């Protein structure tokens, strides 16, 4: 088992490494000189040269890459061309804010999604199931900003005006000091993520419920509740963990739109701003960050899959 996990771990590391190369090479495609970009009109040849030296722009490509990569490990993401400040300082608070948003969304959507999905599978073909699948089918189709704007129209601006539609912690205070402002962004994320969990949970549960061993358990006279809890659910965990992982990873990217919509001061908004300003260092750092979240979450799901599968756990076949 440990070997398998280590293998997955090293694959993840390699993937991240290649992503980092990709992201780094992207900068080389940009026209213009980053030092020039930072200095702007103030660029005298001497200053340019000094800044280039400082930014290692004179080094060969490979060396620059390694330097940048090394910086990532110690939290040095370079200097933002737009603000002139360090990228790490720029992102510090925003990462925390985004994590709060993601964690809240995950904490709601995962258990509720699993419950609704299981309920739906158990009531297959009945009204409750139809309602759950129908609604999740519609929600799954809607782009996140559509859901967000619908919620804003409904709760903030047009129908009811009960909830704030933008996040605006007064300077110096944290977003989570104002819980009412978190409701709509979190709700949007939940509504975007949950349908997938519901659908996957339902499909998986139905598959498991139709399996030979669940039929066997019923034919053994095992009470239905025990059939579900002991025989069905454990088998649904691994596939659902995969979906949850994909959704969490999606959250890492999906918060971009939601944060932009609600002006939530997280990494997503920072990313949009950075792209708008062509602030390459920030875009790079955020792309790496989000890729890392994605890879780690998927790794965790794989590990859950390995741990819940006795075949893999005992180092059996495969």
């Amino acid at each position: 088992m440990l070997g398998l996990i280590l293998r997955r771990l090293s694959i993840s590391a390699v993937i991240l490494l290649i992503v980092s190369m990709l992201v780094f090479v992207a900068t080389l495609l940009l026209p213009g000189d980053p030092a020039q970009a930072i200095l702007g009109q103030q660029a005298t040849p001497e200053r340019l040269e000094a800044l280039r030296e400082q930014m290692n722009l004179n080094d060969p490509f490979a060396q620059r890459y390694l330097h940048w990569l090394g910086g990532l490990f110690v939290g040095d993401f370079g200097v933002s061309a737009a603000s002139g400040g360090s990228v790490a300082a720029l992102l510090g608070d925003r990462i925390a804010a985004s994590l709060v948003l993601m964690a809240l969304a995950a904490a709601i959507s995962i258990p509720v999604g699993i419950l609704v999905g299981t309920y739906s599978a158990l009531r297959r073909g009945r009204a409750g199931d139809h309602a759950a699948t129908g609604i999740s089918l519609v929600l799954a189709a809607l782009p996140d900003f559509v859901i967000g704007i619908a919620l804003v129209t409904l709760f903030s601006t047009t129908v009811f005006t009960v909830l704030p539609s933008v996040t605006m912690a007064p300077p110096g205070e944290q977003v989570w000091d104002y819980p009412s402002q978190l409701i709509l962004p979190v709700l949007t994320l939940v509504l975007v993520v949950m349908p997938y969990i519901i659908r996957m949970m339902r499909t998986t549960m139905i598959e498991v419920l139709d399996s030979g061993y669940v039929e066997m358990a019923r034919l053994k006279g095992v009470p239905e509740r025990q059939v579900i809890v002991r025989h069905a659910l454990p088998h649904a965990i691994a596939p659902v963990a995969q979906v949850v992982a994909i959704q969490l990873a999606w959250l890492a990217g999906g918060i971009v739109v939601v944060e932009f919509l609600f002006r939530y001061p997280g990494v997503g908004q920072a990313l949009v701003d950075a792209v708008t300003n062509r602030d390459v260092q920030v875009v790079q750092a955020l792309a790496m960050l989000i890729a890392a979240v994605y890879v780690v979450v998927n790794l965790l799901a794989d590990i859950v899959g390995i741990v819940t599968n006795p075949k893999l756990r005992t180092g059996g076949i495969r």
Partner: protein
Amino acid sequence: MRTLIEQQTEVALQATDLRVATALGKEILHGVSFTLQRGRMLALVGESGSGKTTAGLACLGYFRTGLKHVGGTVELSDGTDLLALTDAGRRGLRGGSISYVPQDPALSLNPAMRIGTQIMEVLRVHGYGASEQARRNRLAEVLTDVGLPNDAAYQRRWPHELSGGQQQRVGIAMAFAFRPEVMVMDEPTTGLDVTTQALVLQTIHQLVTTHAVAGLYITHDLAVVSEVADEVAVMLAGRIVEQGRSDQVLHDPQHAYTRKLLNAVPDLAGRHHIGEVEAVTGAMPIVSRERAASARVATPVVAEPTSLLSVADLRLSYGTNAVLNGIDFELGRGESLMLLGESGSGKTTAARCIAGLNDTYTGSVSLAGTTLQPGTRQRSAEERHRIQYVFQSPMSSLNPRRTIGESVEVPLHMSGTFSRKERRALVLEALDQVQLAASFIDRRPGQLSGGERQRAAIARALVNAPSVLVCDEVTSALDVSVQASIIDLLRTLQVETGMAMVFVTHNIALARHLSQRLAVLHAGRIVDIGPTDDVLENPQHSYTRELLTHVPTL
């Protein structure tokens, strides 16, 4: 029915006029009645789709998703109608007084639960014994009963750590743990090797008789029926067409369908014809001009005694796992050789090496003195034409998106020497050879039955008029009656075209029906080879002998 009344035995379960329909209202069991008695075994025989499993599960008051009970009763020894009970009431009986052994233990054992726990679960659910200790003792006991180790370490194993035979024993142990009155066994030995099957059957027989359990044994295999059952009920399309003591039914069948079914069962001794072809071997010499001429369907003529196909020191490994450990044999023109082996013996691998489908082997395959390249793509078009291969499953070997004509045409297309018109003529000729009407040319596999598909697949192999036809388990996916017709066809073709044939199978009973020579494969080696009769009557290798003793026969 009449035979049951004569018996002075206690009725454990009586199914009367069982009717089951799909959710859409289509009836699939049309009033099935049977009686199970203590200490006796009823075999429910039928081909796929006959409704035998549905009937068996109805004995537990269980209907699969999409099916519903629409009529009839299942009365227990105390007179209660199982089907009138609530869900909870039925649940109390399932696994308790009525238990079930599933067809495929690999799918029916919960892969995430230790086997001991799974058996204990039955005992706990139904409250066996007074204490946990009592249940533990019973667990150990029942494991011994089915011939498994009963130590704690074994109980802690996961299903995937057991062999197929062991898994099935666990399934039986689970069914037997609560000392049921009735046991329903759904094809419990299908998929097991003959040797394992024999042992499992023995265990079942022992349990049923010594503990006076009433057994319902669901199977498609008439040979197995004769081994285990006291009574037989033959099912066809949701009805029982014939029922009676097994010796009577098997030896003096009344219903036409039963007769047809029995007629189609291959027989190791080659005593009767399956289909319309008489057994090849028996008293006949391997190659006999006279016999060939006089037989209703002639045995092929071997013009030249020189070998056509020669396999020498064929070896193949996947990693460290050696599948073939040096296979040598010769095949003469017009000769038919059976390659017999159980799963894992390497028989299919060997066949694929010959056909060039497996190009990683070492050793040599020669055709008429020319050593062939390993892969089909390296072989010449001529060489490819001369060796043809028919796959095991006709469900898989035809592209469902192409018409039969298109599929059969492929070999011609690739030879590239024929015009469109010629190709069509050749395809029609091949279809005619396999007794498929010309209209099949534009049909797709989905519109064909399994037997028809296999014919079409054979037609594809014939279209280039091969010298050697390699048939890989071509009948194993088919019902026994269809199998007979295919065997029939192959024999006819062999005679008509004079091609040599390598017939790969696990079913030793087919030997005398098909092949002049028999090679027994075991663990990647040929352990016995020779004229079929010689091998069957005078097996040289202990493995062959063991195999022969375990073959169930009618």
